């Protein structure tokens, strides 16, 4: 059993502390962090085919940022808001996972 060699620890549920064991799955759960404002991340794992903007460039909402080849499709990644391209976090040819930061847009 995954927990058999685990020691009992204090585990708080609504103020009260319980002595119990934690599972490996619980210990490895992803911790949530607020994504930085204006950050565009990949919804799919894939390869960056081409980048259509450069850092510092002023863009409007809906402008093509880059093309990501993923799931046998060329996916067009568009700007979700208008502003200035603050940073591009990938380069052409990069193979990236899901939720990988692609670009940061400074709103305005």
């Amino acid at each position, binding site marked *: *059993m*995954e*927990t058999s060699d685990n020691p*009992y620890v204090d*585990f708080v*549920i*609504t*103020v*009260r*502390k*319980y*002595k*119990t*064991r*934690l*599972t*490996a*799955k*619980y210990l490895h*759960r*992803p*911790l*949530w962090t607020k994504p930085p404002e204006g950050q565009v991340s990949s919804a799919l*794992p*894939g390869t960056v085919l081409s980048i259509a903007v450069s850092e510092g460039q002023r863009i409007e909402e809906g402008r093509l940022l880059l093309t990501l080849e*993923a799931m046998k499709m060329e996916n067009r990644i568009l700007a979700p808001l208008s502003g200035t391209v603050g940073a591009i976090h990938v380069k052409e040819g990069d*193979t990236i*996972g899901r939720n990988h930061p692609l670009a940061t847009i400074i709103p305005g």
Partner: protein
Amino acid sequence: MTELNKDIQALREKKAVVEMGGGEAAIEKQAAMGKLTARERILSLVDANSFHEYDMFVKHDGRDFGMDKKDFPGDGVVTGTGAIFGAPVCIYAQDFTVAGGSLGLQHARKITKIMDHALKMKCPIIGINDSGGARIQEGVQALAGYGEIFYRNTIASGVVPQISLILGPCAGGAVYSPALTDFVFVVENISKMFITGPNVIKTVLGEDISMEDLGGARVHAEVTGNAHFWARSEQECFEQIKRLVSFIPWNNAERARSIAPAEPLAGLNIETIVPADPRQPYDVRDVIRATVDSSDFLEVHELWAANIVTGFGRMHGETVGFVANQPMVLAGVLDCDSSDKAARFIRFCDSFNIPIITLEDMPGYLPGVDQEHAGVIRHGAKVLYAYSEATVPKITVILRKAYGGGYIAMNSRHLGADFMFAWPGAEIAVMGPEGAAGIIFRKEIMEAADPDAMRQEKVKEYIEKFANPFVAASKGFIDSVIEPRETRSMLLHALRLSAGKEEFRPAKKHGLPPF
């Protein structure tokens, strides 16, 4: 030699060829991987001399890429009928020694034929998966074959028990047949199950992961919950299946077969298992073992979502299903996984006429962003749905804590429990005393000269007023407050009384559980 004898001789020779599967070299390779052959597996599982093989002479109908010149004995799958402890079963085993157990249309048709047979004869279906996947040379025909199997898995669901063994690779679309069945068995180092394999993951994502780490037996038994039973060897796996079959009925019109009644083993004292302090852990399976016949408990999903315990035992020789919070793992909270686990088990019991006994000792739902974002609301709702929907006898014993939404979810009177029992130390309340007192007496505590002392006093006051079973009993939500040592006799009484239970639901095509 007469003509007849010649025919018999020819038949025997033809059968011998098919029984050799992929031939000696392939069988040796199979053995080198620690695997039995398809026929050895079936013969290890069923009663001696009970197996009858069907469709030995079926030929594949691949015509392209040179397939018309190839002969695959039995087309890579062995099908037939047998018995386990005298109970009839329909069974199939993919034969990895023949074309890697790959699935073409005729291979699939052999499987669907035995499935149709099981559905007509109302007996369990056991499928042994050991296949490289779709026979690519057959193209869409292979996909058609999978689809026809999935369709029958769905139609048979809730009519006859369906059991899957993963005794080799089971990848891509093939995984969905086991996933649709009731119980999936995996074996260490042998079972491999995934939608996309390590090679694709490496190419697309650059992530390097072994087959074992991606979809090995332990992963499915502990992390994904795709497997209900985990074994160290094929032989242990077969013993687990025989034990499971002994607990469940042949079909949804039958009751599980009863055996001679027996008392629990003498060594387990139910009065000393559960600590009085609700914050202290214990193994709730000891309470189950102290309650059931011969202390014999078959746990389902033992390694996954261990904060809830599900499984079968017998009371006075009759099968019952147990659902119990497990305080020694994650304090026994309900979360996404434990909700899925409990709901699925409850629905199996309800489909197959198995009464459900719920043992409750839980502090509530697991807090956390990961839980909320993973949909603990819709997963948790499955437990409410499954208990409310079930019409088999439903009995609850509150051992210690029953707080908040968890109290409602764990087969409360309000969801239609037939019998509600509580031990005298049970705390039935909206939340734990510390949390509740902090809210109700917030002002008094804040304004007190000594807030800590005031808090403790108010917690004590709350415990005295609410942290007991008598408030719920005074409303009739609890039928009886019982001593722990009366548990077995009260459960036996309740089960006897509900033997003829009938409960009806409005006519509908089907309900809409929050999938």
